[in-house]
């Protein structure tokens, strides 16, 4: 499924020519997509209509952490890897969550940075973020856009199990 071309046209009309236009357009298009990502077709159409080279659009879409080129899971668990969260054990939370959702380490080195993996059933996407700026609540996890502070392995387990059972966090 892709965003309709009319929708893309509307987004272009709103931003073209303004500073930061390309970023803003991509952000809006991704947000508008039900699976919160940018399908290749969308990028192609955007390139055609804005007269920007495809390479440029792909360069931007792959450069910034916010853009997803793959469909996202129904639920998003976003674990903050900021310094305050790191000092208060966010790596263990990340490991624990991956274990709980059956997600494996893809590559050996430095794989904890900028992670975004989705379960095979597309129920969950686990991501990391550089910092939510919620450092006083460290460690912080965002579950479906709700910020949870002072998270322990136990509270996170509970959240995820609730979502697994179809409830809301």
């Amino acid at each position, binding site marked *: 499924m892709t965003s309709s071309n009319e929708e893309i046209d509307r987004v272009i009309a709103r931003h073209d020519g303004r500073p930061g236009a390309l970023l803003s357009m991509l952000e809006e298009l991704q947000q508008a997509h039900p699976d919160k990502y940018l399908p290749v077709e969308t990028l192609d159409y955007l390139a055609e209509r804005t007269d920007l080279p495809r390479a440029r659009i792909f360069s931007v879409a792959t450069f910034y952490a916010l853009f997803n080129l793959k469909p996202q899971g129904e639920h998003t668990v976003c674990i903050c890897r900021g*310094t305050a969260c790191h000092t208060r054990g966010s790596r263990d939370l990340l490991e624990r969550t991956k274990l709980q959702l059956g997600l494996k380490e893809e590559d050996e080195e430095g794989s904890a940075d900028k992670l975004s993996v989705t379960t095979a059933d597309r129920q969950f996407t686990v991501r990391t973020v550089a910092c939510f700026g919620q450092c006083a609540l460290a460690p912080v996890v965002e579950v479906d856009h709700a910020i949870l502070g002072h998270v322990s392995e136990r509270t996170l387990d509970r959240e995820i199990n609730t979502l697994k059972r179809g409830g809301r966090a």
Partner: protein
Amino acid sequence: MTRIADLSTFNTVHEDGLAKLLPPRPRIAVGMGTCGTGHGAEGVFHAFSAEIGNRGLGISLARTGCFGICAEEPLVNVWIPGKPLVILRKVQPHDAGAILDAITSGAVPFDLALCRIEEWDHITAHIKYGTGFEEIPLWSDVPFFKGQKKIVLRHCGLISPGDIEEYIAVGGYQALYKVLIDGNPVGVIEQIKGSKLRGRGGAGYQTGIKWEFLRAAQAEQKYLICNADEGDPGAYMNRNEIEGDPHSLLEGMIIGGYVTGATEGIIYIRAEYPLAVHRLQSAIQQARDYGLLGQNILGRGFDFHVSLVEGAGAFVCGEETALIRSLEGKAGRPAPRPPYPAEKGLYGKPTNINNVETWYNIAPIIIKGASWFTDTGSPRSSGTKVFSLVGKVNSTGLVEMPLGTPLKTFVYAIGGGAPNGKSVKAVQTGGPSGGCIPQEMLDTPVDYESLAALGSIMGSGGMVVMDEDNCMVDVARYFIEFTHSESCGKCVPCRVGLDKSLALLNRFTRGAATVQDLAMLDELSRMIRDTSLCGLGQTAPNPVLTTMRHFRHEFEDHIRAHRCRAGVCQDLALSPCENSCPLHMNIPRFLELYKEDKIEEAFLSVVLDNPLPASTGRVCQHPCENRCRRVGIDEAVNMREVHRYIADAIYASNRYPALIEQVRARMLPPTGKRVAVVGAGPTGLACAYYLALLGHETTVYDGNAEAGGMLRYVLPDYRLPKEVLRKELELIEAIGVKFVFNTQVGRDLSLNEIDAAYDAVFLSIGTWKEAWVYLPGTELRGVIPALPFLESVAKNEPVALGKTVAVIGGGNAAIDSARTALRLGSGVTIIYRRERKDMPAIPEETEAAEAEGAEMVFLAAPHRIIGNAAGGVQAVEVVRTTLGEFDSSGRRRPVPTGEVIRFECDTVILAVGETVDLDFVKASGLKIKEAGTIEVDRYTLETSRDKFYAGGDVISGASNVSNAMGYGKKAARKIDDRLMGAHRFGQLLPEFDYDKSPPSCPSGSGRHRVSELPALERVKTFAEAVAGLSPVEAMEEACRCLRCDARNGDN
């Protein structure tokens, strides 16, 4: 809504705003920054809203930003006309009713009150709230706020960020009005230059000079950019500033536009800050509506437009040239400078970029003048800076302090030190571009130059506190992992260099690194720093370089000892408990073996890891519990008591002799090497035990008549019955360790004689000398040092103890002395110069002493001991102390007051610390450290004399039994390595057969505590005061283990 075009409309809006801020009725304002809503402020707001509506109350309700003390959120401000503004803390929705009840009767709930504000200096205005409620502390008396000077945060948490009229009510847009009326842009730039305001994004370039460049640039179009891409992990000042007070940013930018000739302003803000984006959007709209932004601002013919662009999660976009690329719709890769943005910036036009916080300082400088601004801060770093104080610190939040404030003020006075009584290890400033400053250097003033001198930077204001549980190698690795993933990839040093740095650091955290790797990492870091294109690469090595500079020993521990003391690098430890145990006992293994009903194997596992399991099971300080992961569920597993139980059960059974045989069966064949151990305390016993197991002929010398050292001669019977120790010694004797008692090495036998007779010598003579405080009156009869007192009691010798005893000190020897004196029938007062929480004694012991009737006097330093006519003790006088500055141990230094208190007593026991017997050490010809301990190589325990090793208290200073035994065990391993030229220690352990998978579901049982005899009963005798666990309790404790040793859940 009014479009402001002249002074009278401006004043009208000002009055309207004041009427909202200080209405003729009570006002409640809920702190609804992201930190507030993250703590449930939304619910609190709705509860107030519903309740006010239901009751039909005449009370205003507003939303504000955060007042900075994020740890106490949700914060609610309550103002009743004529009264001070009261800030309530940790307000929950269910509190709304009670708060409204109080307000309607003209009061506030004191139990929720954090502080009161009688008047507030908004810098651009002064608000008088009122007086009263003196029971509530003034805001400036709350430790977190003490010394804070809110210039940038002048409005945050007090006005409604969503209402421009409230901003105008506190003097907002007055500076803009003044600048436009004066019509003297050059004068404004001179003023900013005169204020010496420096960029608050981190680099610290003077703002006035940057503005001058932009003004001088000739172009049709110039741009002003606000960098709100706050990407430093661990920093969130800008988020709060914008959420709490968006208009101050806009006002600063509009003024900047006017004086530099720019007509376009762009705020580049992180998409991760949705609330800040929202608040800014509505602030921009309001400013336009009121004629403060857009065309013909304030009717003065000046146009300025501001637009918002959301960043998309790229740290490098904080770098100005990358940010400009991003605004141009490109990937955010930096460009070389020159040309600087002031010449060729956005779309090739002259551009000025300032950090959010820089803009917040503009209006105050214009209203109050440059010299007012330079009055605050240090000569080269004027003004204040907002820091986000986070990490391992009790009070987290945003702190605005004058530049030049020492780091320790932040960490201790404001932050209240590390949580759970842990000690602070370092403070990280400046995020991934900054560095780690060690605890010993926390006197450093926080300003641009001082931090740079230590290899760090001020940066945007992140201040992350690290404690003893943080590994500095891991911290370095963490930051490189971050910059490695954020590197844009344009230049080789940064792209490839950081990749190689990360690979090297991974070798350290896995224990695979070598000394060459350390040198390589250092060289590589310097290369990246010196040759990268932009600020990201140039500063990325800072965290590595500073940790290598200030925490080199931690890198060395990872290389040479394959140990991560903090227990963070998991590949270097079996489990957190094993890592914390000085003997490195395989705790999960004995718990599991016992759980599987294999108590004999469990005992074997225990006793091959620790030859004195029943003794340590009683008196160890159990560091294993500090990092137990079970704490995340309920409480730590009571590991110490389980091995005590296992050992006690075996000693009490008839299986002990057979198990001794099994230990003997593990012994390696005789090597023909002879080793002498000097001192039969826990250190020497542990060393001798393992040396004998390794096949060496081992002889232990001791000046006493029996083995055990302090376990035998100092620890009172009620803590460790002598027969328990005796039972454990049977094993050590059975494997062939020889003891030569009543022989003091250095007196009865010279070191040279020993040297000639043995292949290696291990010195573990402990700290038997009582430190002495030189007070008037210590020469009196009745003043006795703690150790000789405890020793006499342990030897059943008569001691002359009076009826009332004063014990001076707060360590274990003080508590042991007090509890012993109580058992001898005396009344006891313990006098300690610091607070209870600073006492080095085991807390359970202190509590037990108190329960048994000891009086405790804290914050009292001994002054003099007064004698009677007979030359005995009459009384002790102490000086009351108060708590002063934080010392290097992170405790507040006791400062004597003039108040003297007198305690009548006839005996004074001095327990102020133990030291090494320097006479022996000096005679030994070994190198001695300044602290009076023997100098050894940290990794091999070799002394300055060949063949001589040392360990235990004699190298560390007075410590505890498990630390002591840890040294003994390590020394045996190192001596064996040297004598045999091979690593053979691992051969001592058999294969144990036990389940190596974690429990599928953790046992629901809570922690079992040991039971103490009732205080009044136990104080009558020296019988053991604490009974062990029952078999069922021990089993349940074993089942509570989460098995951190089982790494992958699926094996």
